């Protein structure tokens, strides 16, 4: 039987099998690999914790690897090769480059390893056997919809700044940005392109590298273009904290609503403190533990993980965190979120 045929036959049963994975027993010497972009970002630290806990619970061996910085493709290629050589059953990887790793991933799959992309999908997504990720578009859509509902009639005259990641416009960057635009009710042109909208309410966009320092400088730059900005979308919570510092320094901290994505613990505390209006929380721990369970299931009986219906990946969930809930957008409070936050 060819691999393709196997996949076809098994995919129907996958959804059912998935629920049973937690109970899957390790078959002796199963080894799984976790390869993250870096081991510095708390998001990946949490991911490693989740994977380690799941691996220990199931009694399998886990090897973890990480690149030195985001974008460090060479280290990840070397890590995949090491995992193949070590005879691992499967690899969980957050690819540093959505396209560049394709050859070595194919090599791993040919060698019989189950490869699951965590958090960041490959391009094309079927480079890996499966993708377990946050629905970043949905994360953006939630905060956009919340902002529109919170502003009410004033949304028609909003002055919007978007603080994005970097000039490369990687998928997580445009998905969150375009999700936000969609949720707020702005017509996006090319959904993979930041900044091509014609809506006059958009003041501009700038990049932050996802850091507080970048967020502050970017916010200052955009305020120089229009000091009346009253809605700020940010790629993540450190950038949001930087934006808030800039607004405070300009003496207009209360003028703008700041929305963000991630659900890191400092970010959740910033929601509680009123620095951030709302943030969309993602669940790295769940991503990793589900990934480990999928590898065990595959090693035991060849079960292939399935995608969430209507998506090209398995959605590990996203939840809006705000202390000012609005009708029509489900949310949890910052107090509840503190128990769930990562980092």
């Amino acid at each position, binding site marked *: 039987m060819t691999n393709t045929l196997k996949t076809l036959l098994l995919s129907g049963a996958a959804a059912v099998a998935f629920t049973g994975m937690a109970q899957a027993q390790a078959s002796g010497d199963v080894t799984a690999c976790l390869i993250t972009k870096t081991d510095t970002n708390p998001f990946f630290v949490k991911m490693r914790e989740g994977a380690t806990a799941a691996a220990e619970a199931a009694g399998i061996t886990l090897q973890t690897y990480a690149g030195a910085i985001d974008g460090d493709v060479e280290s990840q290629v070397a890590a995949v090769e090491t995992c193949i050589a070590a005879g691992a059953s499967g690899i969980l990887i957050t690819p540093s480059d959505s396209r560049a790793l394709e050859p070595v991933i194919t090599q791993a799959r040919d060698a019989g390893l189950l490869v699951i992309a965590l958090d960041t999908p490959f391009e094309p997504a079927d480079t890996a056997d499966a993708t377990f990720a946050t629905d970043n578009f949905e994360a953006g859509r939630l905060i956009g919809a919340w902002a529109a509902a919170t502003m009410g009639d004033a949304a028609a005259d909003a002055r919007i700044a978007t603080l994005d990641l970097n000039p490369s416009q990687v998928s997580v960057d445009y998905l969150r940005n375009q999700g936000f635009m969609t949720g707020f009710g702005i017509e996006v042109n090319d959904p993979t392109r930041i900044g091509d909208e014609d809506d006059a309410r958009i003041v501009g966009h700038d990049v932050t590298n996802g*850091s507080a320092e970048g967020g502050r400088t970017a916010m200052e*730059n955009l305020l*120089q273009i229009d000091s009346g900005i009253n809605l700020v979308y940010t790629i993540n919570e450190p950038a949001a*904290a930087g934006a*808030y510092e800039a607004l405070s320094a300009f003496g207009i901290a209360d003028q703008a609503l700041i929305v963000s994505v991630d659900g890191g613990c400092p970010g959740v505390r910033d929601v509680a403190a009123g620095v951030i209006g709302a943030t969309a929380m993602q669940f790295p721990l769940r991503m990793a533990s589900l990934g480990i369970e999928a590898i065990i299931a595959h090693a035991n009986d060849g079960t292939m993980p399935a995608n969430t219906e209507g998506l090209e990946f398995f959605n590990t969930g996203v939840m809006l965190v705000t202390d000012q809930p609005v009708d029509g957008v489900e949310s949890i409070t910052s107090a509840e979120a503190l128990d769930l936050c990562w980092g």
Partner: protein
Amino acid sequence: MSDTPKPGGQDYEARLKTSATTLAEFDHAPRGVIGTIQHVLHANPTFVPVIVLVASIAVFGVIAGERFFSPFNLSLILQQVSIIGILAAAQTLIILTAGIDLSVAAIMVLMSVISGKLAVQFGVPAPIALLVSFAGGIAAGYLNGWLVTKIKLPPFIATLGTWNVFFALVLWLSGAQSIRGADIDATAPLLKFFGNTIQIGDARLTFGTILMILVFVALWYVLNKTAWGRHVYMIGDDKEAAELAGIRTDRTLRQVYMLAGFICALAAWASIGRVGSISPQSFYEGNLESITAVVIGGISLFGGRGSIMGALFGALIVGVFQSGLRLAGVDVLWQVFAIGWLIIIAVAIDQWIRKVSA
């Protein structure tokens, strides 16, 4: 000796009337306009960055209009370059000795995390936390200097190593977690001292900006008006000659690295005021940005030549380009493109000036 030569004696001095009256000197070929410019630039290395700075302010004033030219925006540019500017001052010291320091930003972030951890999370009084961070900066600089002078590692390699070491310590100490601005305000507001501002008309000067200018003025004095400063230039120009002239070169080099480390610790304090929080992810490329400012400032990477003020102008040129292009609505990637060309042109001009013939 009598005033008049003795008769019959040899009249040496009479010959003087017919001999040359000028001192020995080189032949001067006419230099022409280009040659003259080359000479002026050789004698005044800060001319190029000053001209570029003035020209770029003028050009962006025209392109981006009044908003760019406003006192508020110009003071904002000063504010935005203040941290990289202070790092560039430290970097200049090292580059003047013909070295390079890849660890400046890592030392800075490490010291900001140390002072933040101590003051905010362990309740150590803020002044003591800051003193610890200053001592830490000096110690980090000493390590670099020791590796360069005792172990004889090339500065590039020594600081490439310590950059990684310090960066790893940052992550270990911070758990890759930011320390929130609100927590700093509540427990140790002194850490954010350099975020305070003075309003002069529409312009807003932060204390961090003033610190940057003070650092440059102090270093200018030390480098130009003290023997130690001249030694630094001499070591960069020709280390062996400096040694033969009796300068204790290795000791001076270690002092240079320690001073640079201390300046990085000052930058750490200022960065907390600037960023508002302590973020281990910030300034990851601060080392390269500081080198960019130094190079655009006309300071020779080959050591021994250039004025510390050049680095200040270099940092400002980068800030002016970024602000001007942003206000003119140019996409971010073209800012990166422009800075790249600035670096190439600056070093090309330096190479051309170095070729100056006497």
